[in-house]
């Protein structure tokens, strides 16, 4: 049994635990020539620098809000989608929907953001054409603080709904059809069967994914935010990762970004541990 785990164990030791000695540069002034071990200690300087930034609270606020938004919208939608898709009787239609929704996952972020600009343009975008058709004023979506988070989250839903639902679809295929037959005999409607049979049977995977999602709370898709950013939406779009990227332009800023990454990781891990504790108490499913 343990032997079966050995390769994985060795892998994690070599490629994850061993390099962790690198974390110390968060407390050092990393100098390439002296190496990680030889760089001078600086204590908490890098952490203080981040905290003292006048942007600190805006950045934290945006990071948290975007994550909450994603958790509330982007997390449940693939589950609902998988459950509904599972009810489609026509296999070909079902497979078509599945394949189409899966495809956007492979489109690069640059092209997605490019399409957002085209579709949402205040002058020529089709969404604004529609708005004008219905007598509304065109909206400058991409240059607005208020719209930024919604555009970010929903374009993410568009891109990853199908992809994220794959796990649930796979889990649903493990549901015993006998249970459904029995439920039909008892007169249960489709909706009832979803609620009583399907949902409970994929519940463990939902809980685990939820826990892990919460555990990655402070990290957001850096590249997409960076590409969507402009001077007009900056107050809503500056997040930890983009900020670190901008301040870290100097080649030797490894220490600083490591420090902030470490703060991120600690917060995330504490969140995860807390949620995990709760899950343990109520559901008996937990990460460890």
């Amino acid at each position, binding site marked *: 049994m343990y032997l*079966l785990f050995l390769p994985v164990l*060795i892998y994690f030791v*070599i490629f994850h635990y061993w390099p962790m000695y690198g974390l110390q540069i968060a407390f050092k002034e990393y*100098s390439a*020539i002296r190496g990680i071990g030889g760089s001078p200690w600086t204590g908490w300087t890098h952490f203080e620098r981040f905290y003292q930034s006048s942007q600190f609270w805006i950045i934290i606020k945006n990071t948290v809000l975007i994550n909450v938004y994603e958790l509330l919208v982007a997390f449940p939608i693939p589950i609902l989608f998988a459950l509904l898709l599972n009810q489609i009787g026509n296999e070909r239609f079902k497979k078509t929907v599945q394949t189409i929704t899966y495809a956007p996952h492979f489109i690069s972020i640059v092209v997605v953001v490019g399409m957002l600009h085209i579709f949402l343009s205040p*002058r020529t975008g089709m969404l604004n054409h529609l708005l004008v058709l219905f007598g509304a004023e065109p909206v400058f979506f991409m240059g607005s603080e208020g719209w930024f988070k919604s555009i970010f989250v929903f374009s993410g839903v568009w891109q990853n709904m199908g992809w994220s639902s794959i796990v649930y679809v796979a889990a649903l295929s493990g549901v015993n059809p006998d249970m459904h037959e029995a439920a039909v005999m008892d007169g249960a409607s489709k909706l009832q069967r979803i609620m009583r049979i399907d949902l409970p049977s994929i519940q463990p995977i939902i809980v685990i994914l939820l826990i892990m999602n919460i555990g990655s709370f402070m990290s957001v898709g850096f590249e997409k935010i960076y590409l969507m950013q*402009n001077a*007009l939406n900056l107050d809503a779009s500056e997040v930890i990762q983009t900020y670190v990227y901008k301040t870290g332009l100097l*080649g030797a800023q490894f220490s600083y970004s490591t420090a902030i990454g470490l703060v991120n990781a600690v917060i995330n891990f504490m969140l995860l541990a807390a949620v995990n504790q709760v899950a343990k108490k109520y559901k008996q499913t937990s990460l460890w």
Partner: protein
Amino acid sequence: MNKRSYKGKITILMAISLLLSACSNANNAGNEEGSGHANANSVGSSAVQEERDSNINKEGLPIVKEKVSLQFVTTMSPLQKKPYADLQVVKDFEAKTNVHIDWDAVPSESYKEKKNLIFAGGSLPDAFYGINALDDADVTLYGDQGYLIPLEDLIEAYAPNIKRLFELRPEYKEGVTSSDGHIYSIPTIHEQDQLTQEDALFINKKWLDTLGLPLPATVEQFEQVLQAFKQKDPNGNNIADEIPFSFIYGGARQDGIYSMFGSFGRLDNPDHLVIENGQLVFTADKPAYREAVEYFNRLYQEGLIDPESFTQDTQVITAKGKNEGVPILGAFVGWNAANVLGPERAADYVALAPLKDSNGNQLWNKYHGSSFTRSGFSITSASKYPEVAIRWIDAQYEEEESLQWSSGPIGVNLIKNGDRYDYAPIPEGKSYGEFRHTEAPGNQSARAILRETFAKINESETNLAKIALWNFYKPYQPKEIYPLVVFDAADLERLNILKTDLYSYIDKKQAQFIVKGFTQEDWDSYVKELEKMNLNELLDIYSRYYDKSKR
């Protein structure tokens, strides 16, 4: 079944052997890091050294008697389709010098990460080659830390072309001399003076004629013209599809509105620093700046500024310029007219002289252009052949050689007529940029092309158009701009921290002020916030180096 368990065992075996080899290698890791240094220090001490020296010709070509191989790290333009080793200039140069280069060419977009890891990982090449190979900060920091070796003695002993360059243009030598007195990089010199003028304001002359309006000379007239563009349907299609004024807000100085701030008494630029009467002045908290922002806010409120100016990239503004059917762009800021409008429509637009301020002053921005770039060629402490490397680059800093590495080889991209050069005609279906990069690294190369050399080339049409623009705006350019200085590592780092916060705050606020307007209170709190972000410290550093440069 058997197959599966077999695979499992293989996996385990492989993992274990990995672990073992990892452990044995771990001990070496430390030693390796220092070894690069040892090489550089041991130059001239051993018998191997002597043998090596006798292989090197002190002058003339080839550089070495027996072929020597060096490893260079460089960037590669996306326009370049062949790998470095297959480029004609590279092959010809190898034949001439007898030095083989093992190129590690990285697409320019992803270069930064790779470069950082090369330094961090300690496996240095012999040299970093090219205009984008190292940025100013790299040269300073890695020079300071001993990764790059000082070049001044090597230049003295082996590099007549570079020496001559530094004698002709002492300011360039100064520009690469660090505060510790050493030279860690040979600069890239590309003296096309028209490149010091980046942005130009274009206006649709045909529309003005249709509407019977003269070229606007003041900011008020400009506003009136834009209003007429918006309201009077100058393209005559009965649709109000005209975009009176468009630009690209933010970092890009060639498409932005920085120069137009001059119409209110003081120019602005991405660093928000100008020199007035030998004094460093910060622009973005002064009344002139405020007036300019108020003016743009008024234009925005009146619907004269394209809202997409704040979000668009060149692709989008170009699509507007090349709009099918009638033109829709009234005025815009850009590098030249043809890039945005296409060559035919460009004829309908003219460059507009700087709009006059209340005192009748006219100002337009000047930048350092590409005449001097600190990065070009840097030799690392890991190189066993620094003399060969310096001789190699010196050979490339010969006039015609530099020209060919930048513009493409003679016979392909250039035609030589006596001592003058012509650009070869561009084949159908290719742009000049692509053509130039077919057999040479082009703009990514390290080179020294002086004004005198460019004077020997019969200019292409694109260049002539740019030169005309430069001549047009030259009279309005400031006498002095913030000089090219070399910051030392500590100041550089501090500046970087200060600038990130400050400049993105200023950019953001300017955009908000233009789009949403602002009150006295907003302005006061903005100025106060700048102070809180340690504006003064930033200015201290900049003025310290400015004063030093004047000496």
